[in-house]
């Protein structure tokens, strides 16, 4: 069994307006030392998935089913208390907005020390030294001094580094980064991505990076999972997704992206419409109302939920279109448009 394995994970929220099926039957697995990128539009269930793995929905209103296996342990059925002891130590998380994700009233050091001392019975002084170490490791200059700063005294990039230091303080084996760079400037984003790559190699942990920026995914990921409406619609290695994508939604994402290596005048190829409401997920293939090829499925897309099927070498796609047709469309209609000048 893999280090991390999700089987048919479902996270549903009952609300006044109806049941929000934020994650609806998600399965994937991840090995130590590998990086999984999860991409998808806003509201596709990326954050809910990651919080689900950490067990942070427990005790809330969420209804969770399915299985999450982490290093041979099942977490969905495990007690909240047990999952808590794993958090921080076995698995850790980096959040998108480091300013709001850090407590404004405690120093950065105190927050790292706290994280460290939950799982390590050490004195404050030792923990503090460790915190200074960690800050240094993530590239914060003068860590002995900065350890006593408050989050608001840090710049955006430094905050995110501190956040990473906090997440890594207990050597977690699984690190989930939920949009770690979205709030940052490009130059800083590049620094952070480098840092994460280096650290992952150093710690040899499993890394899940969640983003809607395909560029970021391409930089870091070994495998990529594309989510739409709470489901995985395509999964494969980075090469699979960027070189041989098979799902129309993935094509749409690639087509929508303005690229630095493409010039003015090249028209973008957007996906029509807007992402679905998770309360009223469209029948059949959730993507069908926005899909240009929906008419080629003889109505199946409207009624039947397509299966997530392996096409080759671990490349999974959830689409009614026949494999050959998909490949043909990619090669002939889409790819030429994406190629630059």
């Amino acid at each position, binding site marked *: 069994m893999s280090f991390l394995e999700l089987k048919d994970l479902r996270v549903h929220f009952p609300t*006044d*307006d*109806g049941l929000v099926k934020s994650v609806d039957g998600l399965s994937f697995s991840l090995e130590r030392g590998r990086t999984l990128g999860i991409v998808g539009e806003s509201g596709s269930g990326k954050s809910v998935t990651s919080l689900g793995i950490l067990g942070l929905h427990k005790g809330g209103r969420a209804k969770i089913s399915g299985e999450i296996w982490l290093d041979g342990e099942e977490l969905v059925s495990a007690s909240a208390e047990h999952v808590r002891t794993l958090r921080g130590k076995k698995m850790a998380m980096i959040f998108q907005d480091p300013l709001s994700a850090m407590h404004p009233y405690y120093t950065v050091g105190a927050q790292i020390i706290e994280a460290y001392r939950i799982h390590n019975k050490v004195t404050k002084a030792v923990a503090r030294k460790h915190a200074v170490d960690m800050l240094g490791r993530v590239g914060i200059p003068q860590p002995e001094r900065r350890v006593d700063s408050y989050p608001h005294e840090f710049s955006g990039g430094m905050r995110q580094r501190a956040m990473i230091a906090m997440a890594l303080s207990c050597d977690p084996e699984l690190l989930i980064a939920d949009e770690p760079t979205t709030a940052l400037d490009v130059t800083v984003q590049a620094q952070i991505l480098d840092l994460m790559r280096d650290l992952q190699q150093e710690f040899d942990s499993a890394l899940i990076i969640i983003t809607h920026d395909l560029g970021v995914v391409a930089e870091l990921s070994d495998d990529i999972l594309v989510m739409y409406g709470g489901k995985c619609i395509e999964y494969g290695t980075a090469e699979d997704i960027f070189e041989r994508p098979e799902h129309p939604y993935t*094509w*749409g994402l690639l*087509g929508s992206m303005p690229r630095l290596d493409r010039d003015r005048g090249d*028209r973008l*190829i*957007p*996906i*029509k*419409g*807007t992402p*679905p*409401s998770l*309360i*009223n997920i469209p029948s059949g293939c959730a993507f069908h*109302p926005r899909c*240009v090829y929906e008419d080629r499925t003889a109505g199946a897309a409207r009624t039947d939920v397509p299966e997530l099927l392996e096409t080759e070498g671990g490349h999974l796609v959830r689409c009614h279109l026949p494999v050959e047709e998909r490949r043909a469309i990619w090669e002939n*209609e*889409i790819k030429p*448009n994406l190629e630059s000048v």
Partner: protein
Amino acid sequence: MTAPLDVSGSDATAAPDAVVEGSPAKAIQGRSLGQIAWLRLKRDKVALVGAGVVIFLILVAVFAPWIVSLIGHPPNDFNQDLISSETLAPKDGTGISGEHLFGVEPVNGRDIFSRVVYGARISLLIAFLATLLSVAIGTVLGVVAGYFGGWVDSVISKTMDVFLAFPILVFAIALAGVVPDDAFGLSGDALRVSLLVFIIGFFNWPYIGRIMRGQTLSLREREFVDAARSLGARGPYIIFREMLPNLVAPMLVYATLLIPTNILFEAALSFLGVGVRPPTATWGGMISEAVRFYSIPHFMFFPGMAIFITVLAFNLFGDGLRDALDPRAR
């Protein structure tokens, strides 16, 4: 060049349907935020009960003379035949009967029911008018401070600070006490009511003012205000057309929540004997009289409950309104 996917012309028209899919009919007339708040409010049973009671109380206050002429006795009429001359208590303990629904007062035997009913008039009238005054002053100054900023804001904000530093109750009692019975061309209940409205309203405006200032400040940061300015809109247009509609909701909520405070304030002043002059019935005044007859509990009970229920109803309604207008607060 045109790619098969390049359908920007047509995609957009299809899009809205996806958005409104959840709503029942494809109504052309959109639902305003007010309507949405109303829908939300309709689901809040507790708030509706509060609203019901509030409306009921307003009707009671408005039709007090009519109600009293149907059931009960004039509020200031004595019924001393019901009073024991020894203990001064009603002969049968309370005097409650079909004639006197809430019984009669000790000593003079006035009908408690009609006094409570008439008390609603004073209470609600003062609370409403005072709230109106606070909201008017508070909104104008709050918006002016928030919109113009700079020294105008400084002056108004500091004024609010100063007002908030006053021991309002002491001040109100003292003021209500030093003003003689005929002043400013008014006399009797009219003078007392205006005086109380003025005092209560005037000392409460900074609360509304602060809220309005904050709201205005945050609205001013919203880009639609810049949008209007970049279209060449003038100050009044921005204040009245752009900001004010967004201020109505908080104004309404805080006004609704200020009313019960003002009812309590008025009751306190009447209780301390500086409210409307007797024999005009006020709830606070009745309680302060009833204190001397605490061994005759129904005398204190009915006006006490009247205050309680009224304030509670306004609070329930206000809370519900706030939740409905500001879903974040839920």
